[in-house]
């Protein structure tokens, strides 16, 4: 059965929006897309996204362990996968950012570089808005925010800048 545009878009959005879903989405996409051509297109898109994330995530896991990154992930997971309140998200981010801050600068710099390369406009705006809101003045804190925006920030943050 051929997918409708709405279904295709939802699948692509789901794959793009949450790194945690990518592997599952890739599998389900490979299984479910009945139209071979759309299947191939989605696969291409997802592979790009996976490749991009794999470039940075191994370093994250080595350097961050279960501290900063995992706590941020947990904070978001606890809100479920539906659309949480943006303000809640940002407040959660703010609380997490005021934690131990034990993030390797080189890892953060990697994320920052990634942010600069990809969707930099959106992330620039989100980043600047968050810095202003939470008054994070130090470079380290700002770089940590890059990390958070990279992992979790997604599009809706940009609207607030």
């Amino acid at each position: 059965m051929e997918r409708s545009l709405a279904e295709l878009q939802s699948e692509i959005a789901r794959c793009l929006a949450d790194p945690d879903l990518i592997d599952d989405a890739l599998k389900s996409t490979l299984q479910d897309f009945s139209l071979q051509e759309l299947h191939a297109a989605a696969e291409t898109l997802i592979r790009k996204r996976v490749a991009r994330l794999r470039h940075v995530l191994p370093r994250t896991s080595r350097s961050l362990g279960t501290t900063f990154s995992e706590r941020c992930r947990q904070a978001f997971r606890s809100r479920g996968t539906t659309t949480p309140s943006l303000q809640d998200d940002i407040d959660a981010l703010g609380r997490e950012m005021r934690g131990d801050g034990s993030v390797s600068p080189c890892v953060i710099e990697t994320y920052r570089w990634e942010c600069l390369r990809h969707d930099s406009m959106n992330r620039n705006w989100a980043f600047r808005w968050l810095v202003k809101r939470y008054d994070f003045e130090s470079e380290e804190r700002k770089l940590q925010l890059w990390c958070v925006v990279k992992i979790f920030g997604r599009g809706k943050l940009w609207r607030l800048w």
Partner: protein
Amino acid sequence: MAAATAVAAEVVVADAEAAINTITNLPRLGVGFGFRDRYHTDVFVHRSSIDFLEITADHFFDASRAKREQLELLSRNFTLIPHGLSLSLGSAEGIDDVYLRQLADIVSAVSPPWWSEHIAFTHAGGIDIGHLTSLPRTKESLAVLGRNIRRAKAAIPMPLILENITESIRYPGDQIDEASFLGELLEENDCGLLLDVTNLYTNSVNYRFDPLPLLWRLPRERIVQLHFAGGHWQDETLIDSHSTPACEEVWSLLREVLAYADVRGIILERDEKLPPLTEILIEVNRAREMYLQAKSNNHPASREG
């Protein structure tokens, strides 16, 4: 019956001509750049070198008092073109009412000759993607775009121009070639084209096609505004990052577009590695020289008019 049919046909033709005139009669604005906060003071210092500015409408949503004042100050001194990022005209699930209302408020506040959005979707399935994501070129996509554009135009009465994006993927299941898709989209919805020359070039490089035949199949009377910018290479892919000065290939393509269409305005985009405004203005001035040269050449579009 035959007479009634003939009259009806004339009305249709007249309506079609009037629709095109809305686009072709837009004012010529010249050359400017995408406003960024960093240049807030400098744009006034260099006022005489800037014909108009494009603002990112989203930057002014839920704006603080200071941002509102900034917008008022800019609009008193410059012609501003609002450029939306996330209306998501290509979303099959429809466009967001709140976003549309906010966008309409900004457009209304600056009373522009036109406003612009992208031919893309940015949300689906309740998710904001954060990317301008390409659409399959199908009849269904055209129908979705048409439905969303009608809603947008009902809320925002100023002329709408639509921008081509860089495509992260191309859908093998496309039913319609790009020029035909754009042509039908613009004609059916009475929209202008914001032709991003860098995006056209970037797609031509990444997908290995000659951009000129595509350009020459676009409806020239609907090409209203241009974007151009510089990007960078990553893993053998050209990225439209707005991070560097435009490359010579983009300048060449810009010249071709100006020879082809009676363009009303050109905007330089820069979002990364923001240089001093004087460096931005070097490119703006170069584009203006091309723009004025094209106008003085009395290009085909003008002659036909």
